[in-house]
């Protein structure tokens, strides 16, 4: 894999560790206020300084990783499961099912600007982590379904699948034991890019006030709150901003790196 791919993995590991070990790493309670210490600059006591309510920015950024990871993993897992099932149905059965799914359903969802659909869904459903995840899954599953459909269409013609069918394997068995393992690689690439997309979308929606409501330390919410005074105290905006950017970058690197690695044609270049 490319050097950038490894860099991505390194950053992602730090991000995941920060999320899992947040109570140990964080130096303060992420929601504890200290109104006497508002907008303090970074110091030994508060590594990233404090925000408008005197909360420790470092601890909030660390706990923010937890929210991003929760949302990201939930969105990726749910979208992937739905996408794999729907994509398999479309690719395996073909005919009318495929025409309806890939010709109509996929196109409709892709024809919609993703962020706008998420905004509309969250606006109507209301804010909150569960609803945010639901909204992102509604957009997200199509990517997996398309990948899966393409893989199924390709792999089901292979000789070993025909052989399995000849010795009497059923559809489900062929799908699960023969096609899925061979389709897994592009799905992992899709999952990695999907993770980047989910983290970014969560931050974007929270930034617009439509995601995770305060006082939860979502990176997007932190950036939105920091916006009022960042001209005077830029650190309050810088750290959560850098956290979003690095995390998104890391998962994009991993996705690109894996894609190149798995595709010999691109590797040769």
């Amino acid at each position, binding site marked *: 894999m490319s050097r950038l791919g490894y860099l991505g993995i390194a950053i992602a590991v730090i991000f995941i560790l920060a999320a899992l070990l947040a109570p140990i790493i964080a130096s303060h309670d992420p929601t504890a206020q200290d109104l006497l210490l508002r907008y303090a600059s970074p110091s030994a006591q508060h590594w990233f300084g404090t925000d408008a309510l005197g909360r420790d920015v470092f601890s909030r950024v660390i706990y923010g990783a937890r929210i991003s990871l929760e949302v990201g993993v939930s969105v990726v897992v749910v979208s992937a499961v739905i996408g794999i099932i729907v994509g398999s149905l479309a690719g395996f059965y073909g005919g009318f099912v495929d025409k309806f799914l890939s010709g109509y359903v996929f196109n409709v969802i892709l024809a919609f600007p993703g962020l706008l659909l998420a905004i509309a869904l969250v606006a109507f459903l209301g804010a909150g982590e569960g609803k945010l995840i639901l909204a992102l899954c509604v957009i997200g599953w199509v990517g997996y379904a398309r990948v899966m459909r393409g893989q199924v269409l390709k792999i089901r013609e292979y000789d070993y699948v025909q052989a399995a069918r000849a010795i009497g394997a059923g559809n489900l068995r062929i799908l699960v034991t023969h096609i899925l393992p061979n389709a897994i690689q592009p799905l992992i690439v899709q999952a990695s890019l999907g993770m980047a997309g989910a983290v970014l979308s969560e931050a974007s929606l929270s930034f617009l006030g439509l995601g995770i409501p305060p006082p939860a330390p979502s990176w997007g919410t932190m950036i939105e709150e920091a916006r009022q005074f960042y001209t005077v105290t830029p650190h309050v905006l810088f750290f959560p901003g850098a956290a979003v950017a690095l995390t998104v*970058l890391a998962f994009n690197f991993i996705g690109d790196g894996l894609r190149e690695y798995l595709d010999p044609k691109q590797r040769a270049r």
Partner: protein
Amino acid sequence: MKYKLLSFARQLALMLLVIWTVVSLVTFLIEIVPGDPATVILGETATQEQLDNFRHKHGLDKPAFFISYSSDEGLKWNGGDNRYADYWIGLLHGDLGTSMRTDRPVRDMIFERYPYTIELAFAAMLVAIGIAIPLGVVAGSRKNSWIDNFASVVALLGISLPTFVIGPFLVYIFAVKLGWFSPTGSLYPEDIVLPAVTLGAALSAILTRMIRSSVIEELGEDYVRTARAKGMSERVVLFKHVLKNGLIPVVTILGLQLGVLLAGAIITEKIFNWQGLGLLLLDDGIEKRDYRLVQGCVLVISVTYILANSVTDFVYRKLDPRIRLS
């Protein structure tokens, strides 16, 4: 010819189907929002008469769809006099309904703000092209030089930095520290610069990468060797021959990205308080729970997006016969 017409008809049918789905989906979402819009808008203190008037004016006393379901009555056919049908009839007459808050036609509210968003999207596109063409050409023609690496880093930053990080960062440097622009608003002509750069950053990164690889590919073609053999200067080869061919894929991306820019403008407008459609949707629609307005904004943005994509697709097919065949 027959095949062409058929393919055009299919394209058109799909587009109409998508638009129908968008309208239906948004209407459905509005209907499942808990709470009664009349009490939400008029408040708890409104009299029964006021509530009834409001409901009648906005069609809230009619059933929502052709079919409704309740636990005691089961599925019930409501006939043609319902809100969904009314909305479609209005839509076909170019009427997007009346705002529940301001009592103004939603169409007027949207078209007051729409030009700002279009202006921003095109400005962003200009910024992106202005950065990407020189950077991409130079990077591609001097592969692996320091300027190529520099271009890669710029492109990487542009792609990975979210708009809500780039925007405030630019404001901090160019508005607060240097004082060249105002931090927010759309009062003066130069106020568009920072929002346009913010919105165009990601696109410029994508374009730079594309132009770079396009230039590298074209430089390996036979016609470049011929041109050089004829004694043409490197600059003429690069700008007159290579760039012309290398730009074909870029044109498509631009078309597809116009839709992305229009939709993505929502965040940029929020950062800079730019009075476009996105801000109308967020501040007047969602924030004030004016669902007719939300419906109209979502519809107009989606339809623009779909149209931009369809037109691009059509133009691209016309430009490149290889795609038409496949």
